[in-house]
């Protein structure tokens, strides 16, 4: 309805009656009378919350706490499910060998989201139930009413209340001794339309805010032969040096730095010469190192390691007839056969020399030192000693019981 079509207001209808008081006690006493008279569409207006006035006015407890509880539970459920779905279904993170869903570590975020949802519900629910924001109200036309946010107290009974009777209600309010008792007329002055400049501003801002999204949408839909745009050049093309590259930053031009002087990496001290080199002084050690336990377990370990690293060439029996040898011999391309480990000269070698052969390699046998730990190399030597014995044993090596079993 445009302004010109508005019917000429011969008389603006009454919104209600307003009574002003200058202290909270007078207001509360008036409120009790209005409550007892059975009015429903009325309210009091005060600069600060008057405690206990709910009872004097007959206001029932708000539903807000239930709303907040509902949102709290929603926040809790959303945070729980979202974390479960993202981290243990859609994109599984392996963290410290924990199960994909190990909920105690998800509790902090569940807690925070519960609080966040509840807080939005508390303030949003308060505004919603209070019918705010409310830009215009008939009371705004009353000059005196502006003191409501300062130091005055008001009671308003609306004309739309079924019990409202202009004369009787006026009498009821007059009996409460207000400072001022006045009519409030409906608001026919304030336009209820949103101001045009505000609409234009919002429309323009809304349109401008869509521009980045339009570019993103275009980029997603379109195809291009050009490479991606490198906004941050040195992040896309790292200036880090590779290990073997020259590096002008250091005096010796080496990218890969040696450890600081006097430091040893964990497990790299190697102060037991016998264990790590197989030598005692300049001679090959004839015994096993003291730290190696000559036990059934070491023997088993040696058998396993021998099976993994040695049998492809030397064979299960150590006779040099491993599967690699068998195949290489068939190819007839000049293959140096692996040694038969039961040859006398090998059997007579000190344990340390065999250890040295495994560690450093022999002829075309590569060095296994970098692949097999020193303890395991010694375990292989131990197993090989047993293997050598097994291939050249005589009946006299058996115990009486074993011999009896054989016969």
């Amino acid at each position, binding site marked *: 309805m445009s302004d010109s079509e508005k019917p000429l207001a011969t008389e603006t209808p009454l919104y209600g009656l307003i009574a002003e008081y*200058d202290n*909270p*006690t007078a207001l509360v006493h008036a409120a009790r009378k209005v409550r007892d008279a059975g009015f429903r569409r009325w*309210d*009091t*207006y*005060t*600069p*600060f*919350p*008057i405690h*206990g*006035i*709910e009872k004097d*006015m007959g*206001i029932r407890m*708000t539903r*807000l*706490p239930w709303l*907040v509880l509902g949102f709290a539970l929603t926040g809790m459920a959303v945070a729980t499910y*979202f974390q479960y779905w*993202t*981290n243990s279904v*859609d*994109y599984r*993170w392996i*963290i410290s060998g924990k199960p994909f869903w*190990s909920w105690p*570590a*998800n509790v*902090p*975020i569940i*807690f*925070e*989201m519960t*609080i*966040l949802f*509840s*807080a939005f519900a*508390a*303030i949003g629910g*308060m505004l919603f*139930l*209070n019918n*705010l*924001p*409310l*830009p215009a*109200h008939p009371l*705004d036309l009353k000059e005196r*009413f*502006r003191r*409501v*946010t*300062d*130091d005055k107290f008001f009671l308003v009974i609306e004309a739309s209340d079924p019990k409202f009777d202009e004369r009787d209600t006026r009498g009821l309010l007059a009996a409460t001794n207000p400072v001022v008792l006045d009519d409030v007329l409906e608001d026919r002055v304030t336009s209820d339309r949103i101001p045009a400049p505000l609409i234009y501003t919002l429309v323009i801002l809304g349109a401008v805010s869509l521009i980045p999204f339009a570019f993103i949408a275009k980029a997603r839909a379109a195809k291009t032969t050009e490479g991606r745009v490198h*906004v*941050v050049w040195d992040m896309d093309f790292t200036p880090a040096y590779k290990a073997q590259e020259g590096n002008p930053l250091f005096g010796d031009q080496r990218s890969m730095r040696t*450890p600081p002087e006097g*430091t040893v990496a964990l497990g790299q001290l190697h102060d037991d010469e016998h264990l790590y080199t197989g030598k005692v002084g300049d001679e090959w050690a004839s015994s096993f190192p003291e730290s190696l336990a000559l036990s059934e377990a070491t023997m088993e370990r040696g058998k396993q390691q021998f099976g993994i690293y040695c049998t492809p060439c030397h064979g299960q029996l150590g006779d040099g007839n491993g599967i690699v040898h068998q195949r290489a011999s068939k190819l007839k391309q000049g293959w140096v056969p692996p040694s038969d480990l039961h040859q006398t000269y090998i059997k007579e070698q000190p344990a340390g020399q065999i250890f040295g052969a495994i560690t450093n390699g022999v002829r075309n046998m590569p060095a296994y030192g970098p692949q097999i730990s020193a303890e395991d190399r010694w375990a292989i030597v131990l197993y090989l000693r047993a293997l050598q014995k097994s291939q050249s044993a005589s009946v006299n090596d058996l115990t009486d019981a074993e011999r009896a079993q054989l016969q």
Partner: protein
Amino acid sequence: MNTRVSITNPYNGPLEGDNAFAQITHNVSRIMEAPRPPLAWYIAFAFALGLLGVFGLSLGIVVWEGIGAWGHVHPVAWGFPIVNFVFWVGIGHAGTLISAILFLLRQNWRTAINRFAEAMTIFAVVCAAVFPGVHIGRPWLPYWMFPIPNQMGMWPQFRSPLEWDVFAVGTYATVSVLFWYMGMIPDFATFRDRSTSTVRRFVYGLVAMGWRGSSRQWHRYERAYLLLASLATPLVLSVHSVVSFDFATSQLPGWHTTIFPPYFVAGAIFGGFAMVVVLAVPAREFFGLKKIITLKHLELMAKVILATGMIVGYAYAMEMFVAWYSGSIYEQFAFLNRAFGNYAWSYWTMIFCNVLAPQVFWFKKLRTNVWVILIVGIIVNVGMWFERFVIICTSLTRDFLPANWGAFIPSAVDYATLAGSFGLFFTLFLLFCRYLPMVAMAEVKAFIPESHVHDH
């Protein structure tokens, strides 16, 4: 009355209004309504803007050059930015504590100071948020911390304390802003109704959202306020606990400590209250709020500082005891190193500022002297900054392996960002003082004797 002050200060005139309510309204509103603020405000604002410029410049250097512009070295990758982050987040705790916990405990004296303590909280959290945002190294990608669907098909790792931080600090900032804003709605309405200019009436009217003080609305408003206070209380306790998890869930000696969550929370309240008094003393002086923020309020805050300072002192002692009692040589070394090692000077600065200095508040004469309160407040803030420096730098520079030891030397950019963050904080705070209701008028009115309803 000091005549010199009354010349430069337009707020020292007599209070208008024929009743106590109107006097409160006038006392607070005239700060915003005065044609111009006092000279001290201009001086402070110019200084704050200058520091803010330093902040912008130093962050510009960091963004342009990379975070190597800060003094980060190999074992100390956290350095000043994280020290500053924890420091500012800690400052941010007093506001919510005063608003929420003291509200639930029915400590009605809080009404005089809660509004600007809340404002302080928000500005401190703003300062805090800048540091991890830039420290991530690619400040244009902070949205990677949020669970936003992306072309890589990845999601954040929700079991990491650093991700908990994002949610804890984010929730805390949001809830603090909501709490602060909701508290100001009735006071915005007061500003709106007193406005003489159309612009002011429109702007304050917009943010007041049509508040008219209806009792039916007050009822829901108070219920919402109570709920927010009840929600903010566990929240405020959780935030610094989560921040402490960044350290406590690691294995580094000096960080790997179960005492951290309560110790951090107590320290945050301690540092936050110290910042409140540092702001309150000049604010009440320059804006003529001595009748609202009285010496009694300052004294009560001094008592809180004393009490929380003792808790913090206990935590320092208990850390030492547990290190000894644990039997772990690494823990024992970490704490001996704190007290007597490479950064011993920072440890003893911390002990002096946080444990010894607040002891003056045992004496009533000293805790009712604004100068003493102000100076101790500043000392405590220095001490709380050093506490975080001690935790981060002593532990990182001396971990398990001597080969991994190092030294942290802050760069000029480090000092500039630290000083500059105060510029951001004070700029926001001074604007708040000038344009927003610095005291919760409606809440103060509700607790003066004149507000009581007398039944026959």
